[in-house]
């Protein structure tokens, strides 16, 4: 179902057209993803295996829940823009490998000063810093629209004016994109970075051609992936990451469900619950395994006053349904976090959102050869770096959630630091650049002085290497 009217967002849908899914005609709109179009038309199962039905989980191109066959090609439905007449089929148990001759157009070489991988808040901020320093800067984004996960944030952000405080996330994304374009940054969309080659280039797939990008400096700002929880039925269509529901309702104006249960009362779970209500979805409960709510009190208060219960010391134990989610079983947990027998509550829900944390998407850095370290405090594998965001590979920088899970403000700031560092590497120790980088570092220290940052700071102590510059 599509959201006709929204209190905060206006959905400008493109031209309507028809696509064919499993031989059946389905209505879709230009500028929406196949996954969104199919979900809007009530199609939940995108793949069936011997062990069950699968549907989209992340909606941002990292999981394989929405893998389908498009015009004989294997594709993620969430990254594929809908186009008139597109023929889409379900994949079965076996997913065929890539076929040869993927790039009939051959390869082209592109030499750039700064290459930025990912166009979220960190990547765009890094690109703006490099671009305004006068460097030829190219951003590569796998999705067909830039902005990363800010695009689907409808709430107003905390902060001060210089850090977009009071603006809504999608408004910040608009500002960052237009600022980047203003300073001459070139943003390539539908251009996933496939990998790094020792000869010094990155392979990028763009519009059916292979680009070999040779940068003088690289900023990797590939973001993060939502975590899955292990429980029976977690594969069912209708069980998805909180961010996936935000993609559907806030980016595409597609209602993710009618009755929702949310797992996790951190900021993401609390904020998504409020946004669900804005999209007209009923939130039956928020379950939090810890004894206390994890997010800011003000975000909890926003949904509590609208009657949404937050069940602390509770978790999801089972999801049930035929081909799609129909019921969610939640239970209390004991001191050892084990479900208490007999405490189960059953919710008739068609949507179960997991807001149980994120993991840095840092595989490209590992592949480049950056020294990585496992940091539970930062959410997973992250690269060692110095305080200026340079990794163990000279000229390769990291920014945003790929360097450790935090939030959009710190992503913007680490992006700025990385962008100015890249510029300093290529342009020498220019006083204005040094000053701007110092200012970004100062704001970053300021932003990390919250109770939630203590864990991050412990993590940073182990992964930030102090070197004499």
């Amino acid at each position: 179902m599509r959201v006709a009217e929204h209190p905060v967002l206006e959905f400008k849908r493109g031209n309507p057209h028809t696509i064919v899914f499993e031989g059946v005609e389905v209505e879709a709109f230009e500028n929406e993803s196949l996954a969104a179009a199919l979900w809007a038309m009530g199609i939940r199962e995108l793949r069936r295996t011997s062990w069950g039905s699968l549907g989209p989980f992340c909606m941002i191109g990292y999981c394989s829940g929405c893998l389908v066959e498009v015009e004989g090609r294997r594709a993620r439905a969430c990254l594929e823009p809908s186009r008139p007449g597109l023929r889409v089929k379900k994949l079965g148990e076996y997913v065929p490998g890539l076929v040869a001759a993927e790039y009939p157009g051959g390869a082209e070489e592109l030499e750039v000063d700064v290459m930025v991988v990912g166009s979220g808040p960190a990547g765009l901020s890094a690109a703006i810093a490099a671009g305004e320093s006068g460097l030829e800067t190219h951003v590569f984004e796998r999705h067909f629209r830039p902005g990363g996960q800010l695009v689907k944030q409808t709430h107003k952000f905390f902060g001060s004016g210089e850090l977009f405080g009071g603006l809504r996330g999608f408004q910040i994304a608009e500002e960052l994109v237009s600022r980047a374009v203003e300073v001459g940054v070139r943003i390539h969309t539908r251009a996933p970075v496939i990998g790094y080659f020792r000869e010094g280039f990155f392979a990028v797939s763009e519009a059916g051609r292979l680009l070999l990008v040779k940068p003088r400096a690289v900023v990797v700002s590939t973001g993060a992936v939502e975590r899955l929880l292990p429980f029976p039925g977690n594969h069912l269509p209708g069980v998805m990451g909180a961010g996936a529901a935000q993609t559907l309702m806030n980016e595409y104006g597609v209602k993710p469900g009618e009755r929702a249960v949310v797992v996790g009362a951190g900021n993401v779970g609390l904020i998504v619950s409020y946004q669900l209500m804005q999209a007209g979805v009923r939130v039956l409960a928020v379950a939090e395994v810890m004894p206390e709510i994890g997010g800011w009190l003000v975000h909890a208060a926003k949904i509590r006053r609208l009657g949404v219960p937050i069940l602390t010391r509770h978790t999801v134990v089972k999801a049930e349904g035929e081909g799609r989610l129909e019921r969610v079983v939640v239970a209390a947990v004991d001191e050892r976090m084990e479900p208490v027998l007999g405490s189960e509550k059953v919710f008739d829900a068609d949507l179960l959102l997991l807001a149980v944390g994120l993991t840095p998407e840092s595989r490209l850095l590992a592949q480049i050869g950056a020294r990585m370290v496992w940091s539970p405090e930062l959410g997973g594998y992250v690269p060692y770096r110095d305080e200026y965001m340079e990794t163990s590979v000279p000229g390769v920088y990291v920014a945003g959630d790929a360097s450790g899970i935090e939030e959009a403000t710190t992503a913007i700031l680490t992006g700025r630091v990385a962008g100015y560092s890249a510029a300093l590497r290529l342009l020498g120790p220019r006083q204005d650049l040094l000053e701007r980088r110092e200012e970004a570092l100062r704001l970053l220290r300021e932003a990390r002085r919250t109770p939630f940052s203590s864990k991050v700071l412990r993590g940073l102590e182990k992964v930030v290497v102090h070197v004499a510059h």
Partner: protein
Amino acid sequence: MWRTRGYVEVEELESMGLVPPVERMERGPVAVAECVEEIPCNVCETACRFGAVSVEGMRGRPRIDWDRCIGCGVCVGVCPGQAMFVVSTAGGEGRVTLPYEFLPRLAPGTRVKLLSRKGEELGVGEVERVFEINKTQVVTVKVPRELIMEVRAVWPL
């Protein structure tokens, strides 16, 4: 404890000195900042044209200068945490100004359900005044005067 409940009780606000004196509320509308954690944010302070909100070093709790505050409600509309409210018992009538971001949009005269901090229905009230800041409706609703520190949300009937 508010971290298990998900909302703050009036008694807790009182103990932190965040509730304006009764005489001040009788004199006319005044802001109440129900922002008790140290959020790195000073949007309210920046938005107040009367210099009535101060946030220590970007991180303290916002403090309202009850003499400077005129109860205009701008902070209600800009607060990213929706933690600002305006209350009044002037003329013996109770009024609460609160943020609203749902459909249908509210207009003066609309009758709405009054909700407490924990979502309990406290009766029905009438919207008196509405203005909008970046898609947030700032809604002033008439409530029984003894409920000005209780009503914290409205919902369409």
